[in-house]
């Protein structure tokens, strides 16, 4: 390769464009986290249910998602469903794909959290006359949340990183903005380094913040 002149300046001129993309990445990721936590909780409850008609579909869902790539899932939701006349706009498809994908992983995480609660807690709350819902809401979930918090924080980092894939279905996140800048400045090397650095900054900042939050939330024993 002939001598290459680095020109990071050309990339930094476009920082506002990149920051706009980063903002999209962040709020897409946060939305995904919240929604997939809901999906994961529902999935975990179904997986642990006595009723096979709840348990089996939940298991199929988890296995189907965890054994196929996110990229294929996104293409299927956006273009695949589009072909059978189910039109999903690109942002919705991105969100749906990310939520369904992470929902499956969170199902397993939440399930492990619930299963980590000793049976004595269940027995005690039953003896106190609590219904299933009350038991779950007031005794099991709060304790389970402590257990699932670290893997949940980890999963959030994964969500941010894998959200870069939605750039292939025209969602203007950080990755797509990076590609747009490359198409104008032709500085692929510098752009990819800067974009990667931005992802690392986001990830490290958020994971440090989550660790701090975790320590404050779970201060007592």
């Amino acid at each position, binding site marked *: 390769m002939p001598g290459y002149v680095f020109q990071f300046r050309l990339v930094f001129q476009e920082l506002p464009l990149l920051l706009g993309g980063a903002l999209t990445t962040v709020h897409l990721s946060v939305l995904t986290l919240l929604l997939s936590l809901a999906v994961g909780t529902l999935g975990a409850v179904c997986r642990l249910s006595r009723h096979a008609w709840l348990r089996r579909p939940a298991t199929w869902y988890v296995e189907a998602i965890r054994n196929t790539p996110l990229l294929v899932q996104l293409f299927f939701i956006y273009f695949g469903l589009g072909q059978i006349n189910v039109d999903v706009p690109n942002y919705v498809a991105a969100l749906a794909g990310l939520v369904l994908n992470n929902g499956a992983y969170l199902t397993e995480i939440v399930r492990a959290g619930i299963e980590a609660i000793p049976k004595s807690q269940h027995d005690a709350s039953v003896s106190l006359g609590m219904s299933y819902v009350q038991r779950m809401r007031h005794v099991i979930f709060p304790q389970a949340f402590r257990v699932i918090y670290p893997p949940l924080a980890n999963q959030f980092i994964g969500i941010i990183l894998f959200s870069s894939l939605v750039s292939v279905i025209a969602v203007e996140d950080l990755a797509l903005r990076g590609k747009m800048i*490359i198409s104008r400045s*032709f500085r692929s090397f510098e752009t990819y380094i800067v974009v990667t650095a931005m992802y690392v900054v986001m990830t490290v900042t958020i994971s*440090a913040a989550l660790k701090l939050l975790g320590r404050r939330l779970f201060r007592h024993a």
Partner: protein
Amino acid sequence: MSRKGTRGRVGILVALLALALWPAAGGAQQAPQDTLQAVLRRGELIVGTFDFFPPWGYRDAQNNLVGMDVDIAKDLAEQMKVKLTLVPVPTAPDRINFLVAGKIDVAISNFTATVERSKTITFTDPYVIDGFGVIFNKAAKIKDWPDLNGKKVAVTVGSTGEILLSQKAPKAQALRFDQASAALLAVQQGKADAQIEDYTYTVYHAGRDPKKSLGFIEKPFDLNPYAFGVRKGDQEWLNFLNFYIYKLHQSGKMKELYRKWFNAEPFRVSPSW
């Protein structure tokens, strides 16, 4: 682990940012190349084309890479008496990225020559002229370019079509895809109302849709040259390819290929004004 961990991570961050902010390393400008000699010595010509852009470079029923540009590449390799290796280039900007990175010897991929792109790479003389066109969903009721305002228009990142959209219909909502084929699919499925691409592309695809739901604007806009792309500082290779293109026109092979792929006469390459 926590304190050490956070400090360690901050350290890494600082290192990365320093790397990212490293000022323009005073390296040499692109040294003079001699791709012609490299190709002849290697006995192999590496050409970058698209594999998703009919009829210039695409996959046929047997999934072989075929097309107008592919035929030209084959002819060029034959004339040079070297082996041909076709490299599918993933996206429009990658034609330049691959060239600059030395992954291909020449880009023959319906490459519109523009002043902007000429700052980074060098274009040969034109081998074909094409204009811009709009392919649209008939349901979207588009007659001409201004109708695109307020509609969803699919474009390819880094294509001349993307730039044209912001000029001709600034009020349109852009859906940016990596590849023209994905953008076309979006139009076909109604996710976008229209796509801006090269004129021959719009004609081709409007004709091939089995549902006949796609239309195109009949008159091409702004005729532009397609050329081969080569690296800067590669004078001998540029001269060689320019001569090849001259012979391509002079021998009538270009007309023959154009008729084969387009069933029509090509636009005049040398305009008269």
